[in-house]
């Protein structure tokens, strides 16, 4: 009975607030916001929006960076899985996935910017020796107008996410046997994987891919650090308008938020069309039956690209770490002139409060999300109603709405809704806000493993006289411990990374390491940013370590149950 309520609960809990928040954003977009004297509907905000210099360029950059980022990340992940499965690199990368995923987007972006800037780490290492540069060259690399550095920053972060999702889904496909059959037919290993495993894997990771598109088209923090500036991406422009001291710009900002929604939707629709096209091309490629052509370059690319991406991410973070203890450090010195702990000592006393409330919020929202997701999935199993694989438009598909709708589009409206309901900012409200984003990711990480769980186990338990509940608690749950903990870790990481929901719903009164880091980042002190970014990255790492370590510890005598990653 309670189980049956779960899907309903999830949908009302998530969709209700988002639609309400969205309505509060759509109304000002058409001129209705009584607090600012807007009480008639009209198109004036849209006219103002369209007249903004560089608007279409902003839209174009947001749109293309979303698609390119997703395409490149997906290709890198698939090629890696195709070429490296079972190799030493494979084990190595699988261990790195979690730490890579736990690096906050903003920190990774800072790291990359510091790496590739004309005065950055790479230039310092080769200067003045190789280049003769005594001074940083005047080159436009970071924040280039085409958004290339933005895309690079996003790709570095999206690869581990898609990889983790793929690793969670792969065991159900039994890739080893598929490849073995293909190889017995004469296919080279990389080609074999791409032809017999990839087409089956893609439907399973389709929703995460869509989430990446939505995220990449509407991301704010990475775009602020690496994105183009004149004009910036659409999401950054919207934020600037929302933050403009001239309050009348809020109308135009709301119109921009609705436009952002349109851009994200258009990117998703375009991807869908590309999917159809790619399906035909790939079918043709498979039908042709080529067994070895292209094996070598694909194999090299598969290993090389992911290595490059991981290396860039880690060196960037190492650069931040170095900065957090750096004394005076000027171009072209490759290392700081002195090392100091001042910045850490200064930050430590103010760390305890934010760190503990980060942990409380992350754990609470993740636990709630896992319970809700398990209840909904178990209900699905018992009623026998399973949505079609990877379908977006089932009732529970509404769950993914928070990932598709840009945050800024509905959060400001949500604050108004919550205020109208008389809820005052506090931990509870922030936890609820995080739940909106944690639940979809937890569901995303858990659902495939849950749905693909071999039903014979449960049937066996029932035959042996166990009740349905006992079968759940004593058979299904222990067997699914590994994917469940991975889902928890992803949930924790998502919660810890949230800035806008924390700041807006908590009225800034609930400080987390992320809000502290963002506030400090506005002052541009790289040493302080380095300290907070490392703290921010280390918290989710704890979650991931537990997720990987716990099954190994609990099932130390049952190798088959230790899980994949």
């Amino acid at each position, binding site marked *: 009975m309670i189980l049956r309520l779960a899907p309903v609960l999830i949908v009302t809990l998530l969709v209700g607030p988002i639609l309400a928040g969205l309505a509060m954003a759509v109304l000002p977009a058409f001129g209705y*916001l009584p*607090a*600012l004297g807007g009480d008639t509907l009209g198109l004036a905000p849209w006219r103002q929006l369209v007249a903004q*210099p*560089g608007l*279409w*360029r902003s839209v174009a950059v947001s749109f293309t960076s979303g698609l390119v980022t997703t395409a490149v990340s997906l290709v890198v992940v698939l090629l890696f899985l195709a070429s490296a499965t079972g190799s030493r690199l494979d084990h190595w990368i699988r261990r790195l996935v979690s730490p890579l995923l736990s690096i906050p987007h903003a920190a990774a972006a800072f790291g990359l910017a510091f790496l590739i800037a*004309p*005065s950055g780490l790479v230039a310092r290492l080769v200067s003045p020796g190789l280049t003769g540069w005594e*001074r*940083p060259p*005047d*080159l*436009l690399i970071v*924040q280039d*107008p085409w958004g290339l550095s933005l895309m690079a920053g996003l790709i570095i972060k999206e690869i581990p996410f898609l990889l983790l999702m793929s690793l969670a889904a792969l065991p159900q496909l039994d890739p080893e046997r598929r490849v073995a059959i293909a190889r017995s037919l004469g296919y080279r290993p990389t080609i074999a994987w791409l032809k017999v495993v990839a087409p089956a894997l893609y439907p399973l990771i389709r929703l995460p891919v869509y989430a990446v598109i939505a995220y990449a088209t509407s991301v704010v923090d990475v775009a*602020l650090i690496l994105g183009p*500036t*004149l*004009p910036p991406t659409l999401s950054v422009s919207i934020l600037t308008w*929302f*933050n*403009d*001291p*001239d*309050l009348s710009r*809020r109308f135009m900002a709301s119109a921009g938020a609705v436009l952002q929604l349109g851009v994200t939707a258009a990117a998703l629709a375009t991807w869908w069309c590309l999917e159809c096209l790619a399906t035909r091309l790939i079918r043709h490629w498979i039908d042709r039956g080529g067994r070895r052509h292209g094996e070598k370059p694909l194999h090299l690319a598969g290993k090389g690209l992911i290595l490059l991406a991981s290396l860039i991410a880690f060196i960037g973070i190492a650069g931040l770490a170095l900065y957090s203890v*750096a*004394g*005076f450090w*000027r*171009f072209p010195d490759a290392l700081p002139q*002195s090392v*100091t702990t*001042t910045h850490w000592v*200064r930050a430590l006393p*103010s760390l305890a409060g934010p760190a503990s409330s980060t942990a409380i919020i992350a754990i609470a929202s993740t636990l709630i999300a896992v319970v809700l997701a398990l209840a909904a999935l178990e209900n699905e199993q018992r009623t026998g109603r399973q949505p079609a694989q990877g379908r977006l438009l089932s009732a529970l598909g509404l769950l993914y709405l928070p990932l598709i709708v840009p945050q800024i589009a509905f959060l*400001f409206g949500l604050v*108004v809704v919550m*205020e*109208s309901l008389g809820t005052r*900012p506090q931990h509870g409200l922030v936890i609820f806000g995080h739940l909106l984003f944690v639940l979809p990711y937890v569901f995303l990480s858990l659902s495939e493993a849950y749905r693909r769980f071999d039903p014979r186990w449960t049937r066996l338990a029932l035959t042996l006289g166990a009740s349905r509940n006992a079968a759940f608690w004593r058979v299904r749950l222990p067997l699914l411990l590994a994917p469940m903990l991975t889902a928890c870790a992803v949930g924790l990481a998502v919660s810890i990374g949230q800035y806008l929901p924390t*700041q*807006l719903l908590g*009225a*800034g*009164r609930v*400080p987390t390491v992320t*809000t*502290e880091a963002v*506030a*400090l*980042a*506005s*002052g*541009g*002190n*790289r*040493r*302080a940013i380095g300290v907070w970014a490392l703290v921010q990255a280390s918290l989710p790492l704890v979650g991931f370590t537990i997720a990987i370590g716990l099954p190994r510890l609990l099932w130390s005598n049952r190798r088959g149950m230790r899980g994949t990653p």
Partner: protein
Amino acid sequence: MPSRTLAAAPLALLLSMPLHAAPDPADWDAVRNEARGQTVYWNAWAGDTRTNRYLEWVNQRMQDEYDVTVVHVKLDDTSAAVSRVLAEKSAGNREDGSIDLIWINGENFAAMRAADLLFGPFAERLPNFALTYPEHNPEVVTDFTLPTEGFEAPWGKAQITFYFDSAEIDSPPRDIEALLAWAEANPGRFTYPRIPDFTGSTFLKQALLALSDADEALYAPVEESDFTAVTAPLWDYLDTLHPHLWRGGRQFPASGPELRNLMSDGELALAFTFIPSEPAAAVADSELPPTTRSYVLEGGTLGNVHFVAIPFNSPHKAGAMVVADFLLSPEAQARKQDLAMWGDRTVLDVARLDEQAQALFALDEENPAMLPPDALAMTLPEPHPSWMTALQEAWLERYVRN
């Protein structure tokens, strides 16, 4: 809703809407009594560790002395607080807002006043306010030409200050015209923050004041003058300047702090800030070399006062007023001016204070990266806020690629 307000007689409630719970600043003892035990949520930009440390000190002192707890709500942008109050007003929350005090000035203040989002007048009733001697220092009651009318209390002073590395430059440019010549001789070594950043916009105003003959027009609303004619010299100037800027003027840093990072990386040789103590603080934090020096342009640079204001729906107005008063005390102001703490200039008229209070402000030692004390005598007042918006729009129109 607090039970105290529920208990208030309904008649009184009707008579004194909507400020029925607001304490009367004229009865200071009552205000102090009411403030006891309150927690004041102070929304303030938190991008500077020194500022944050100072606010922590204020909290300590307020707890010890007045039994008021101050919570620093850390913002990356003051407009977040404006948005919050606006959202609360939209939702009809008129008495139990989440913000008690905001660090504010300029456009944000103008916007909040225009939208009726502030409580007041209260500033002139603060006992320590008299120490600013407003009759001699009109800037403490004027915010970007707008009279504050007691809706915000002065807190500190900022002024455009240029800085450079004396190991690299012997004589930096002393005025806006010389700056152009210097930029031509040193291509790629100077830039200004991207509009609509606050510091960047101030650079536009500084240049406009120097280049145009119509200074008076700048202190009245922009609608009253011919914008195109007044600003023509500015655009000519910028069109000539941009090719010689960092990245050839195709890209601009995001903010004042970013400018400082570029100085630190050695990409720029000359930069400016709105916070006169920033170069000295950056030297102390080993961000800038010890050979860094500061100066102001001949004829003065733009400066303004920053304030604290109380939102109309703050539930702890008494506490907020007591904090605002403490911030104006010689003790708090001297502490704030101390570079070891923060280095933000006082709004008190130090020369008119009694000797004991004056002694608090005595500088212990000269810091070579700091401005000499008399350098800030030439402060140009801020133009009318409408010019800022108009300049920003015109700049974006001109320099953003379509």
